[in-house]
């Protein structure tokens, strides 16, 4: 039910994720932020077992920060992706983390990049990627409409197309999505796509 997908555009990388936190049939909240800002120029979109997702991504974030303090410069996106994959691989044959990750980053020398890291520690550098049931729809949509060097507007339009597909075709589709981008100016939240807002104060 959790959807995370992302793509690389012209000078930026984008990650979109649904924002529902679900436990069996109960929706805890519909504005859960599943795309962590790993450091100034990296995004980590994660989906999977709720506890594992937060525990693992926070652990990665703190270790990425520690590297930056120890060495005076931040990790490159490729290095961060390989570190993340290494941690997943280490835990795999003991007590695996059930987390799927899309790591997007911007490096000054090589530009934007996106890494697909799944729960059994597969690592691929990709132009577009997706996880979850939503991937059936978003990957097809991206295969049809994606081309390299898309502008931000084109990319967000494609993301919206994917969200429409997920909403219409997935039986229990998540109502809300968050979109974050990373470019030369850093990682930031771009927009929310909400169909259900938090309940307002009841009026008399």
């Amino acid at each position, binding site marked *: 039910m959790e959807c995370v997908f992302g793509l690389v555009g012209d000078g930026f990388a984008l990650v979109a994720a649904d924002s529902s936190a679900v436990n069996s049939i109960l929706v805890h909240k519909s504005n859960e932020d599943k795309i962590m800002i790993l450091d100034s120029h990296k995004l980590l979109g994660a989906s999977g077992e709720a506890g594992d997702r937060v525990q693992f991504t*926070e652990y990665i974030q*703190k*270790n990425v*920060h*520690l590297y930056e*303090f*120890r060495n*005076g410069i931040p990790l490159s996106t490729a290095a961060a992706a390989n570190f993340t994959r290494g941690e997943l691989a280490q835990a795999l044959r003991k007590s695996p983390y059930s987390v799927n990750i899309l790591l997007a980053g911007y490096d000054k020398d090589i530009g934007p990049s996106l890494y697909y890291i799944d729960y059994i520690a597969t690592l691929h550098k990709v132009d577009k990627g997706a996880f979850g049931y939503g991937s059936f729809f978003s990957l097809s949509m991206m295969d049809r409409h994606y081309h390299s060097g898309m502008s931000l507007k084109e990319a967000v339009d494609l993301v919206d197309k994917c969200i429409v597909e997920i909403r219409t075709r997935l039986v229990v589709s998540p109502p809300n999505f968050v979109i974050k981008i990373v470019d030369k100016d850093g990682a930031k939240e771009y927009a929310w796509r909400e169909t259900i807002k938090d309940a307002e104060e009841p009026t008399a």
Partner: protein
Amino acid sequence: MARYDRAITVFSPDGHLFQVEYALEAVRKGNAAVGVRGTDVIVLGVEKKSTPKLQDSRSVRKIVSLDTHIALACAGLKADARVLINRARIECQSHRLTVEDPVTVEYITRYIAGLQQKYTQSGGVRPFGLSALIIGFDPYSGAPALYQTDPSGTFSAWKANATGRNSNSMREFLEKNYKETSGQETVKLAIRALLEVVESGGKNIEIAVMTKEQGLRQLEEAEIDAIVAEIEAEKAAAEAAKKAPSKDS
């Protein structure tokens, strides 16, 4: 094997821990370091002994960040400092991971001092030969703080302090001249204290300023030179003013 378990730091008959006192001697031989707390900034200054011509001076950083809001300078054995700084950096991130909050200056100082104390009470190890000046802003109250630790593992908070070579002269100067300052005035006070014991000039002093908004900023050599020139001018003006009134009588 059992013979090497004996502590290196044992009590003397008159209650001294000589290893700790010898470690303090090592600190006294280290480069001068000063810290001054202002109302909205905290300044750390360190003496830079002359760099060998072939050395890349950028690889010798004496004032380091432990976290985005905490910095440290020290006097004494630099290799010991590297070990303590690494442990402190890990603790800063570990604290953020377990309690989702940044450390307070007092917490990380207590942690570093605790490490230093452990090595005065363990078998086969010697104390860390350094005193650290730790600065930062409290993440909750926003108040600036300056702490000092020493090889015995004691720590306390200070408005201004100095350690290392000639620290007594610097401390005396600070005691005479300290007042609540902010911004550039705090930087000047720290540099004036350092200039008491160090040859003047931007290339002999390393200064870093911590502000709440921007964290730690290392000053460029040119900036330091400019402030030193200001200080010298102020000193010259004060000297001239002292001489002038006596002429009128």
